[in-house]
């Protein structure tokens, strides 16, 4: 497999606490890789290290063959790879409308003119079924609508890599499915590489090409979702069974528990 995103020996400590203890991960271009694991195990920390929001204590991250500098804010622009990040709590600006939130990265960091921005954002809002709420502020939107605005903002720049930090937290099952569907559709349309943190097992496996299981600071399983059940690692099996995931529950196997 050709790695578009290659992580080697990534370590991150918070004081004496070792959160990431030598992460090795290879993510193929235009694939969806889902990171699963217990809460507080370091999944979001891993995403933030990749996004350069946190500085790793050791290890390397390569994007399209070029190392990301961990000490420079403009690390991603150095590699020429466009990045986007969808935050767990959306991180929308309260003083901006839904339209302005989605348009923000284009207005502030692209060369598009006003008309082009308007067209592109209108299209995105229509696709996300948010056209009627374009002028509403985040405080006036429901949880699901906020998620869609955040998704729109993450995808509006047509990034090459998108990091999704629990994009379906707090959504009802129907909305969860629709967010996953949107990610899958957009991935097909724009061909970005997605790295996703999710607790929605097994639903998230529907759109995942690869699954990485993070435990005790390391990636202890990396492979196709359908290989999860046959894997003999007991800790992983235990984790999956607590997440109500078993051979019969896998949507990939076409059945529910």
């Amino acid at each position, binding site marked *: 497999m050709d790695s578009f995103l290659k992580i080697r020996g990534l370590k991150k400590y918070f004081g004496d606490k070792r959160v990431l203890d030598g992460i090795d991960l290879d993510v193929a271009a235009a694939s969806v890789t889902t990171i699963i694991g217990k809460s507080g195990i370091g999944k979001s920390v891993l995403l933030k290290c990749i996004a*350069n*929001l946190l500085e790793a204590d050791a290890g390397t991250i390569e994007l399209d063959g070029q190392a990301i500098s961990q000490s420079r804010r403009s690390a991603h622009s150095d590699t020429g790879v466009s990045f986007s990040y969808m935050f767990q*709590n959306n991180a929308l600006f309260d003083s901006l409308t839904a339209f302005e939130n989605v348009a*923000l*990265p284009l207005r502030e960091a692209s060369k598009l003119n006003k008309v082009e921005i308007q067209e592109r954002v209108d299209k995105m809002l229509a696709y996300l079924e948010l056209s009627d709420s374009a002028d509403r502020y985040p405080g006036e939107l429901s949880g699901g609508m906020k998620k869609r605005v955040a998704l729109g903002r993450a995808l509006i720049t047509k990034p090459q890599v998108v990091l999704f930090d629990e994009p379906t937290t707090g959504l009802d099952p129907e909305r969860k499915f629709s967010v996953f569907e949107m990610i899958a559709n957009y991935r097909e349309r724009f061909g970005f590489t997605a790295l996703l943190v999710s607790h929605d097992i097994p639903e998230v496996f529907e759109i995942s090409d690869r699954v990485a299981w993070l435990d005790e600071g390391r990636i202890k399983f990396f492979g196709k979702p359908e290989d999860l059940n046959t894997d003999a690692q007991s800790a992983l099996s235990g984790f999956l069974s607590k997440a109500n995931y078993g051979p019969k529950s896998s949507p990939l196997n076409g059945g529910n528990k």
Partner: protein
Amino acid sequence: MSVVFELGEISLFGWGALRGFFAQRSRFAKLTLGIHEIGVRCFPIIATVGLFTGLVMGLQLYYTLVKFGAESALGTAVALSLIRELGPVLTALMVVGQAGSAMASELGIQRNDEQIDALQTMSIDPLGFLVGPRLVATLICFPILTAIFDLIGIFGGYLTGSLLLNVDSGVYWNRVFESVTWADVQGGYIKAIVFGLLTITICAYRGYNTHRKASFPGVRGVSESATRAVVWSSVTVLAADYLITSFLL
């Protein structure tokens, strides 16, 4: 040692914000919002405090001066005290209370809510975007607010001195115009600009770095940042006032 380190960090923070602002798009629109936040919203409190300060000064100075038969110098005393000292200092303290604390809280919430991280992931310089316009607005608003405070304060002194305590109004205003020199006004403006930059930088710095500087995470951290921002800004204004005054006199 940590104080020196922190002072250096605050200076770099302020410089980064100013520099970042000039690399921003739609600078005029952002600056207008900053002026609204620091200038327009603070105007009512500045006008009110200015008026009452002038009223009290008129009373206190009159009863002091009358002991020496020098009540005709009331205009001089009120005008010079306000323009040289009280105007810039009280204006800065009022803006810290009104806009500085709000800014520290807002930035702290934006930090906790990952909005600042979001800007970074969108390749938008958070310092230039969030702090820069407020700092530039400070440079414009502080001298104007100080001038308004001074004018209303001098008028307050006139209200108590002339209308209440019967100091001749012609004498009061004549003493004001005679005694105030351009050097006094200039000194007041220098103080206003320095106080503005110091207070807004400190308030923004505390809010922006809530995740690093506060002892608690979450809401308590934001509240701590806002409190410390106000306390440290106020102390800094008084310390800087002493230093600048000793240079100017």
